[in-house]
């Protein structure tokens, strides 16, 4: 019977139907970090449970690590305590852990893929809602809470209800200056921040087919911002080429056998979906959020439409009919699990080269991992950013969620390549976030205000 990847993976990972009616689902890869795991380990100890498959969990630190100096002990006593707790827990339960000074350290959703841990056909769990990122490889990846982290540690499985599947087709060529970030912001704008509740999103169409894995990760990463707990792209030759030779990917003949299995899991051409939505790539503009959830966005040239009583207007200081273009910014942030990979930094650097950051703007680039950082430095990107006036930082979550020293102050406005523009998200209860692509952030940093990156691309390509 024709089936979707979601259902094939769900079925191969089903342990049994629980007495509660939920499905017990095997989680093949579990990623943990310092914020949502310490209480889970305490619960294990409390009950005398062991970690069932310690070799299927991998740990690193990302949320709380400072990005200016990563020397230990961290100046922030609590950040140090959380890191030590994770180190101790991993040692006690035999879980591989990459500490802040390890070459593999980085944001969990950046390092999983770059190490080849993330593979097609897996069920992946992590105590972080952006786990949906890993769906870019054709995995089903769930963000979970701490009690579920405990469950995965104890039993390598989760109690879940199945999701419906919505196929989202994007077809056609994206215009220059329009990126994966604009595609997903447009999808969320169209379907709403709760449109995906109850669904997994399957992204396809020729636009997605032509995308690199890094672009697909940006799309899948923000599935959760549209309410979809999981999002994925069917695995294809691009996926297999990305994985080949990566440290944890199968090697040699095993790789070829893996490819055959991975191919078999892709949704069948005549698979049925619970819903279908289509988008035309050519109609997508560089997109910017103006409000306090990721669905409140407009094309950079558009006027904001909405009900003036919506609290987002008062909080952000916009009015219906305003344009976001021309908004003066205080901070420019390039980073986060959405947009901190090499291609994001390359595209931003292309805009920045030969320019200076506007004098009133604090601008920072935070690579997603040490590996990204080293690759960028090998290409001289750090010099381009630095000479323009950007700070070049160490890897971590940084200003996406401000659990570390990087944060907004007062009512500052930040042009940000991250994923959430919630009130207070970037560390100041009154701080304001404008989400956009890394290239748009780079352009805003230079102009000192939100601008259409296409006006600067003309200059780059001229």
């Amino acid at each position, binding site marked *: 019977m024709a089936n979707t990847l979601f259902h094939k993976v769900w079925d191969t990972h089903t342990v*049994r139907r629980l007495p509660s009616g939920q499905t017990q689902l095997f989680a093949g890869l579990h990623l943990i970090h310092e914020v949502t795991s310490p209480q889970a380990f305490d619960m294990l100890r409390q*009950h005398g449970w062991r970690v*069932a498959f310690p070799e299927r969990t991998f740990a690193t630190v990302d949320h709380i690590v400072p990005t200016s100096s990563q020397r230990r002990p961290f100046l922030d006593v609590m950040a140090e305590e959380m890191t030590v707790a994770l180190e101790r827990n991993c040692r006690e339960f035999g879980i591989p852990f990459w500490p802040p000074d390890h070459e593999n350290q980085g944001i969990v959703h950046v390092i999983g893929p770059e190490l080849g841990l993330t593979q097609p056909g897996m069920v992946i769990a992590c105590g972080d809602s952006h786990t949906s990122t890993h769906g870019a490889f054709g995995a089903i990846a769930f963000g979970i809470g701490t009690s579920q982290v405990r*469950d995965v540690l104890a039993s390598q499985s989760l109690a879940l209800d199945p999701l419906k599947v919505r196929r989202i087709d994007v077809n056609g060529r994206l215009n220059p200056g329009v990126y994966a970030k604009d595609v997903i912001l447009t999808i969320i704008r169209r379907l709403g921040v709760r449109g995906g509740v109850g669904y997994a999103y399957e992204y396809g169409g020729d636009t997605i087919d032509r995308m690199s894995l890094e672009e697909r990760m940006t799309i899948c990463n923000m599935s959760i911002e549209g309410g979809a*707990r999981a999002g994925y792209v069917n695995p294809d030759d691009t996926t297999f080429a990305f994985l080949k030779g990566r440290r944890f990917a199968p090697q040699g003949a095993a790789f070829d056998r893996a490819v055959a299995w991975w191919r078999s899991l892709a949704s069948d051409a005549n698979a049925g979906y619970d819903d279908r939505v289509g988008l035309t790539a050519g109609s997508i503009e560089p997109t910017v959020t103006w409000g306090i*959830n990721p669905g409140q966005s407009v094309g950079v040239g558009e006027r904001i439409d909405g009900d003036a009583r919506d609290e987002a207007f008062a909080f952000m200081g916009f009015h219906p009919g305003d344009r976001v273009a021309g908004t003066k910014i205080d901070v420019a942030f390039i980073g986060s699990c959405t947009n901190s990979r090499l291609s994001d930094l390359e595209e931003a650097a292309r805009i920045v080269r030969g320019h200076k950051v506007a004098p009133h703007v604090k601008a920072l680039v935070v690579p997603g991992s040490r590996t990204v950082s080293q690759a960028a430095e090998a290409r001289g990107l750090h010099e381009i950013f630095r000479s323009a006036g950007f700070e070049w930082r160490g890897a971590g979550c940084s200003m996406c969620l401000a*659990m570390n020293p990087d944060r907004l102050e007062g009512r500052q406005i930040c042009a940000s390549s991250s994923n959430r523009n919630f*009130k*207070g998200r970037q560390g100041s209860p009154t701080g304001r976030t404008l989400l956009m692509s890394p290239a748009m952030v780079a352009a805003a940093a230079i102009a000192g205000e939100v601008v259409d990156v296409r006006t600067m691309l003309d200059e780059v390509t001229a």
Partner: protein
Amino acid sequence: MSQAQAILSVTGRGLPVRGDDIDTDRIMPARFLKAVSFEGLERHVFEDDRAADPWHPFNDARYKGASILVVNRNFGCGSSREHAPQGLARFGIAAVVGESFSEIFQGNAAVMGLPCFAADRESIDRLQSIVEKTPEVTITADVQSGVVTAGDVRIRASLPSALRDAFVSGQWNPTAMLLDRFEEVREVATRLPYVTGF
């Protein structure tokens, strides 16, 4: 593991928090996640919203001691932080009645024994209005029948069937169930090519 208790109904006074898409960053700002335990989170529930709005329901003395939160659409969206429902539960919230919930929030709340009931917009608006007018009204949310009563008002508010059954049977904390037939977990592992090395 101690045997979990069946949760058949929750009774208490209401606490209405109006607004759609209230995310977990608002319920529990990230800076309070810098900890290795959930202790003390009750002090920080809606901290920034409360500071910005003296009239925030969590500041309102009329709702002191309330245990049933009444909310609107997509409550608990965003971050998967269990610190949000943990903070609410430690504050004294024992049930949430709303138009809809983010799945991660609803799942996190369930495994802590905190049921999230969903009802239509009109019913929720009525419930919020009743509580705003008469904060002392007693609300009862019945898990099995999916009926929420407040004084002489009665609304339909349901839980996803698997969660409802889990509360009724006392099996809302799934770890023991997940470990119950662990040999079947191992069997699945041996069937998965990526576990066995292709």
